[in-house]
């Protein structure tokens, strides 16, 4: 990630994302899944599983991981790396909360 070219874009209220769940943000470059953990952290990952394209936003969120809804690969929300025996990586985006709103760091 290149901090110099990122701009922070407001995408909605934290409370619009269910705890231990996700919502999708549509962008020109594809869908981004914005996750909210039970500790109210937010993470943003590409909404496409590297296995067969499953929508990660529909997976079960546990701790800071998500399990893909189609064939149960598990990804670390911090790094986007597949866990365990599976090999793969999902692009991540910087995300933060300010005054109850969620911002994504996107490159224009």
């Amino acid at each position, binding site marked *: 990630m290149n901090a110099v070219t990122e701009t922070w874009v407001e995408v909605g209220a934290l409370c619009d994302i269910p705890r231990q769940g996700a919502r999708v943000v549509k962008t*020109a470059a594809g869908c981004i899944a*914005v996750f909210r*953990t*039970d500790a109210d952290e937010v993470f943003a990952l590409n909404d496409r599983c590297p296995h067969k*394209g499953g929508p990660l936003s529909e997976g*079960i969120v546990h701790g800071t991981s998500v*399990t893909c809804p189609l064939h149960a690969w598990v990804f670390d929300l911090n790094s986007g790396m597949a866990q365990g025996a599976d090999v793969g990586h999902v692009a991540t985006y910087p995300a933060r909360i300010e005054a109850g709103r969620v911002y994504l760091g996107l490159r224009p």
Partner: protein
Amino acid sequence: MMKKLVVIGAGMASGRMLEHLTGWNVTLFNAEPRGNYNRLMLSPVLSGEKTYEEIITHDADWYAARGIDCRFGEPVVRIDRVNKTVYSNLGGAPYDALVIATGSAPFIIPVPGHQLPGVVTYRDLEDTHAMIAAAKPGSTAVVIGGGLLGLEAAAGMAARGAEVTVIHLMGHLMERQLDPSAGYLLQKDLERRGIRIHCKGATKAILGKDRVEAVLLEDGTVYPADLVCMAVGIRPETRIATDAHLEVERGIVVDAQMRSSDPAIFALGECVQFDKQLFGLVAPLYDQAKVLAAVLNGEEAAFAPVQTATKLKVTGVDLFSAGDFAEGPGREDIVFRDPGRGVYKRLILEGDRLLGAVLYGDTADGSWFFDLIKQGTDITDLRETMIFGPGFGGAKADPLAAVAALPPEAEICGCNGVCKGTIVQAVTGGAHTLDAVRALTKASASCGTCTGLVEKVMAVTLGGAFTANANPPMCKCTDHTHEEVRRLIKAQVLQSIPAVMQELGWKSHGGCASCRPALNYYLLADWPLDYCDDRQSRFVNERNHANIQKDGTYSVVPRMWGGVTTPDELRAIADAADRYNVPMVKVTGGQRIDLLGVKKEDLPAIWSDLNAAGMVSGHAYSKGLRTVKTCVGSAFCRFGTQDSTGLGIKLEKLLWGSWTPAKVKLGVSGCPRNCAEATCKDIGVICVDSGYQISVAGAAGLEVKETELLISVPTEDEAMEVIAAFTQLYRENSRYLHRIYKWVAKVGLDWCKDQMEDLENRRALYDRFMLSQSVYQKDPWAELAQRPEDWAPLKTLALEAAE
């Protein structure tokens, strides 16, 4: 001549500043009719553990010795910056330098009735006295807000004998400082003191004629209340600063010398905003006080915010949280639970540093962790053992701890009503093998699902002398098997996922995609009235009430009761297929119609159309009742002996909406020719002249298996009762994801037959099934279709970049 300093507000922050100040001629205004006292200690005053006199920090002698002109009970109403004078309603006071230290104002939710007498906040001595006056034995009080202040108010009033209810909007208490597990433990401790806790409760109105009488929630619950305390939050008290046109955002904006946008005016305490931050605990305010005193004394000083730690001041509750729980890449958790002692610890790490800590039940190491956080200590070498504290002696989480912690009266074997004490007695009396324990106590001698638990009780009793049979644990988050978890949920009356994870010593934070759906099912099946279904613990299909397809679209299958439809229903399906551009309409193997390839955001609309035509979800995606296949039966068929179509429809109407360990499919055939393929279903009915043969445990998927006869009954009513009762038996006893045939293979068909032949037991099972249906038999879309915005993208960013 000494220069004149005017201070507005005699609170925690300004009091500390005055202690460090020299060389000024001070005038001190305070809205409260008294000087500085320790606001933090209002809670012990409320609970009766301290008196007001004991918490005064600065008395009349102290002010007199320093020549401070005290103007208590005189709120400042205006600042005249041009003439450097502040005014109360009694007169003015000129200043060379001014300090605003007005603290915060409690937030009041403007629900109807919020102005009734008897509604108080929790900020000062007047509020505290109002609560003391109201909180008599036998009185009722409602506290709105389950944060730090609300809980201290609730515990204080409860200590004085009032019956207190806390209403909290979020899913668990103190959600800003605690994670759900610690929140659960806290709730349990408070409930043990007789405080009722209502989470996820939104206040709709405060009811009463001349003063408060009750509180009404959005969900219709009403709690009687002689007093209502609103503790929902605070906001900086900035009104006079705003009126004076100082720079104010959320608080009065100050620099590191506590100077506002006017160089002669300073501010400190909860009313200020520094570097975009507000401050709500005293530790940073004391630092501000020292900095400001130094600046006023002409010395160099700069304020830098430090991390803060929170402790709840409720006697007997040990809770500590510190540091950062907010988002950040590369963070990890270490979790430790000791269910026996009610201890929970969670550390949050980033790389080689400790970021945050939540401790419950044992907070002895709190200051050590806090120090590691503040110092940013490299914890690489401590990492393995740090959760056990600085005095680590090698203790490890014990998989038997949860069983060891069970009281003797905890029921281990549900079938035979055998409690832990009885098993322990048998073991100490010489029964050292499972068979011996079985013979003596009958424990695990029936359905056998408690075998693992019985073995663990034996292992705990015998120490190292006994090794339990290897039965794989539920998942890597726990050492317990599914069966043990199910029994312990009942034995320990565990009614939430955090409760299960805490009491049974879960090793992960928040479980995984394998245990969470199972726990959600066990809890809703065992506690239909008390447990609240957790949508986020369900697989995608059940969460979205539609079957996800390989391309991320969904399929929509409305119920077609017993495989019978009408021209109107077909028209509604056809219209929906047209309106939402459904790519494929298919007849399923379950005698109904599937609309495949529907977009997620169209689901609420397509379902509200189908609902309007009288159709409900077919649950083609659920671990629950799927279809009841029927043949035409006596209504049309020349061989039909009974109305198989009618019975199939009645059964589907009886069973639909129920959640089960795995999917359940039925078939009803009108005669032994069996055109509805009833003999390869989970439950099948073959109609014969003398009545109904009910057979179970068939399969035609991954395995193919013929059903076996459970019971024959003469009437339709009995058939319905048996089938509902058998379904309930399965719901209560099977492990998650086991189809009926797998479960019956474990518990034995004979045991199932006994359960059905015992008429009293059958009736009780039926009643429990119907109780659950009273909660769960509802069309999910009736509610879900109301909020289409939840199904759309959170945001669609302008696509110009692509164009």
